[in-house]
């Protein structure tokens, strides 16, 4: 039996079950401006103009960033793997001059590591949350529903 990209190996490929009935499913709606902003960034769209990085927005982005990080990386993932993601995100936005190690430390902290994250400029922190969320969503190739679901989950946790 041959394996495909999605089968996980030669021994686990099975034909789809013809009896499965797919029910109509409506993805939950993103309810906050900050959530819609995050989705727009992740989709490479122009974000809504009225978005403000107030405390609620920052909290939502931090939680969404953490959820995405833990979906992308296993606990104790190799540092080289984490660094690659960070480097790609930082290089994608060269004009922002994001400090690479600050970004890496925030990502490692989100994964539960005890690392030095004090004294990072709050604007850098927000930029890292949003841009790394976008980078990770891209690496995970999240579909529309998965992206929306992740942000809704963050909204539920935040508020």
């Amino acid at each position, binding site marked *: 039996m041959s394996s495909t990209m999605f089968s996980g190996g030669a021994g686990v490929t099975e034909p789809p079950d013809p009896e499965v009935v797919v029910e109509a499913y409506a993805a939950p709606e993103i309810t906050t401006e900050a959530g819609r902003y995050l989705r727009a960034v992740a989709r490479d769209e122009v974000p809504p103009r009225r978005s403000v990085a107030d405390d609620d927005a920052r909290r939502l982005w931090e939680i969404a960033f953490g959820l995405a990080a833990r979906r992308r990386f296993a606990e104790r993932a190799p*540092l080289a793997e984490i660094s690659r993601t960070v480097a790609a995100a930082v290089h994608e936005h060269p004009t922002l001059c994001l400090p690479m190690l600050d970004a890496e430390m925030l990502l490692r902290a989100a994964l539960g590591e005890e690392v030095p994250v004090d004294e990072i400029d709050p604007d850098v922190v927000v930029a890292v949350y949003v841009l790394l969320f976008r980078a990770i969503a891209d690496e995970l190739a999240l579909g529309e529903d998965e992206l929306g679901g992740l942000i809704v989950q963050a909204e539920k946790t935040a508020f």
Partner: protein
Amino acid sequence: MGQIGTIAKTATAAGGLILQALTDEQPARSLSRLADSPSAVRLLRELFIVSVRRSFVRRDPRDVTRYVADLLEYRSLPSGGEIARETEALIRTALGEPDLARGIADLRRFELSCFVIGDLARPPGVPQAELLGLVDQAERRVARRAT
């Protein structure tokens, strides 16, 4: 007298000054006072690279984070903030990640290098023969770059 014998074994005067500084009560501070000597600064830069590579190559990269935290705690400095990140950035740059230390000014790099090299003298200290070996290798690197 033993100290003088050790210093005499270095190939350069700068090497002698660095070894002398490492015997002082506050080695990092003594090393940073060598900032006016271009030859000592060049040698310290290479000594930092040699020491870091001998210590960390083939180890878990997270050991760098742990080492920096330990060093700062030993020096009673805050280990959760910028100085920890800058020190880690400099060490990992020497290990082959040059992007990490971009944005750190030369003077700051020099100070942090002295801070880490000064730790070679932390008790029990690096054995004398090994320390001489590090300085010797650093001197060779400086000489190679000069040609």
